[in-house]
């Protein structure tokens, strides 16, 4: 079986792997690189648990052909924290009980990060729209929405 070389940065670090034709980015991140933060939930673009940022924008890694990520900058939840310091979103998710089983959390965090990177002071409606493609089956969405709004407020405090 022929494999294709693929290089990209993952959370700022250079990665070089060989990928199969047809292999999706989620599979490459998890099985070839070993970043288990993005999850498989549906493989069909319904659940959002595989959400990663590609060049700063949210994408579903399970529907992304891996070889299309050549040269891309990919971010996952594994890279959110700065060393021991959690990202404001992570702090806020912890405090607001915005995760129960935790399976959707990685994707939810990345969808939220994409929003806050672009829109630091979102309205509630903008938050709702930002996570509209991410399914949570445990906590209900209210704590998640509240956490994202709170993280935005923390971000403002940090930058002030």
């Amino acid at each position, binding site marked *: 079986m022929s494999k294709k070389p693929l290089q990209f940065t993952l959370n700022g670090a250079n990665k070089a792997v060989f990928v*199969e034709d047809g292999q999706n980015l989620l599979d490459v991140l998890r099985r070839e690189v070993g970043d288990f933060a993005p999850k*498989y*939930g549906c493989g069909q673009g319904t659940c959002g648990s595989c959400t990663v940022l590609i060049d700063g924008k949210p994408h579903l890694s399970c529907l992304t052909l891996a070889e299309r990520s050549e040269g891309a900058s990919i971010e996952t939840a*594994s890279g959110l924290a700065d060393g021991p310091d959690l990202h404001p*979103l992570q702090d806020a*998710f912890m405090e607001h009980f915005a995760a129960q089983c935790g*399976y959707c959390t990685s994707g939810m965090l990345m969808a939220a990060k994409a929003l806050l990177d672009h829109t630091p002071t979102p309205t509630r409606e903008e938050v709702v729209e930002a996570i509209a493609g991410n399914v949570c089956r445990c906590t209900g969405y209210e704590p998640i929405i509240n956490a994202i709004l709170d993280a935005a407020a923390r971000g403002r405090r940090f930058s002030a």
Partner: protein
Amino acid sequence: MLELRKDIFADERDDNLNEIGKPTQRQDMLGHVTGRTRYYDDHAFEGMLHLKVVRSPHHHARIRSIDTSAADRLPGVRRIIQAADIPVNLNTLLSLIEFGEDDEPTLAEDKVRYIGEPVVAVVADTEVIAMAAVAAVRVDYEVLPHVLDVEEALKPGAVSVNPVYTKNHFVFHDSYDRQKMRFGDVEAGFAQADHVLEARYQMSPIEHAPVEPMGCIAAPETNDRIVVHTSTQALFFSLGTAAKILDMPSNRLHFIGGTVGGGFGGKVDSLTEPLAILACKLTGKPVRYGFNRQEEMQAGPPRGAEVHYIKDGVMNDGRIVARQIRSYFDAGAYTRLSSYAIIKCTGHLPGPYTIPNVKTDVFCVYTNRTPATAMRGFGVTGVDFSLECHMDKMAQLVGMDAIEFRIFNAYRDGDMKAHRREAKNTALVECCQVAAQKAGWPIRDEFQQMSSLHGGGGERAAIPYTRMDQEGIIAGMSAAQAPPSTPIQAPATMAPAIAATVAAPPPAPVVPPVPTVAQPPVATQLPLAATAPQAPQSSQQPPVVAGAPAVPPLSPPAMGQQAAPPSIPTSPSPSMQPASPYTSPAPQTEGSEGSSRPSASPRPGTVRHGSRLAGTRRR
């Protein structure tokens, strides 16, 4: 947000609480927000193989032949597994607690009975190859008529679904086509009532839809063990199930789990572990068997469909005087946990209300649907929906406020419940009061002043005269159910055990002998079993026949016992826990009253029951 109402039942509780009422961070939260939590699939193994299964495209079909040759030839296919490769192919989940017959194959043998039923497993180097191999397996099916509706399934001449319970219903306590409960005389209640209201309620199947589909990875470990990372919600239940199906000692299996990406009851059926472990044994390699989303939705078990017929008699003043319930639970093609759900359901009937005349019949029905399983309060949720809808209609019928109507009929501490247990620690009155207050729903002062602690007991603790009936008695499991060509495969130890026998915790309490000889029902009202659990109330009865002297005779058991669910490791129902059958000295045969023994026993099977029961003491 969270509000602890310590004013309610303040003198019944120790309030020196260290944690409750204070915010406490979950210990797994940091892992969740950093993406470091490891679910079953977040484990890397060198050389891991992937298992996928060929699934039935039909509701019901005979398997004429299976041709795996094309799949076998695909490069990268390591192994193909069929029913004959599985040491103990036929299983029922609750056999671990000796409840029900083995009725479900891990891989289909002669027939498929629901869309999505596993037929053949393939193990390959990659998931892509495994999927291609699945597509390459040819199964020749003879499509058979199917039945998808519980009431249709019980009609004469209906398609027979289950290989063991051929009449499309589970057999309760070896002798009944339904789970019965009789309390008082509903017909008299209806005759006395000012209004009678009857309605049908139904609930469709509900998929848990966890974001993580179920699955596991089985890998060779040191010391000739196999380590299994699994999404199961019931680790030891799955361990026991896998050990049984694979006929191997459970200490050869090292199950790691408890980190579940959403379960809600849907991940207790142990559907992936046996095949993955078998594939691991056969190939010597780590094997991953994970459901994809389609499989999770189609073949993953749902909360089963239910149909409830409720008929209530109510007086003009709002008193409910009779309640009759006839319910059908759709188990799908195989039993799984539906039999248990019905025990739970019956233990909950007639809802949290004190009603002097109750008659309930709950059927566990087989259809060609995906087998149903546990889901958040299963057995109770659907019937509660129905009962509370009915309560609203009844309140309207008698012109009462819906909440006042509930408070009026709510059980109080000391009341006798229909399954002959005294109501304790009831709180419905207070719940209604707080809910009304929170909702800004005005209720009259007299209802605001009522309490669960007052007004119960006394007459309300009495067990009414209850007449015998013969409804639902069948000739017995082996005679009526097993087709001649399909001998029941369960060994004696796996024979159907009644719910009561399996919930018994050790050590077995001393239970005085009770008669097994059939006696006519007596019309006197005796203070009952549940209220005086230490001794039978009637001493003039002959001693137990033979066999197991320290064991209550059990043919067929009373609701008080029947209501005690087997303590399986899923959704335990704390309220049910105290209901050990051994604390109930006078087993109530259905329809019996007081400690008298009715003549309902279809056969003198006491000895057999007793010895089997004795055999279950190990738990």
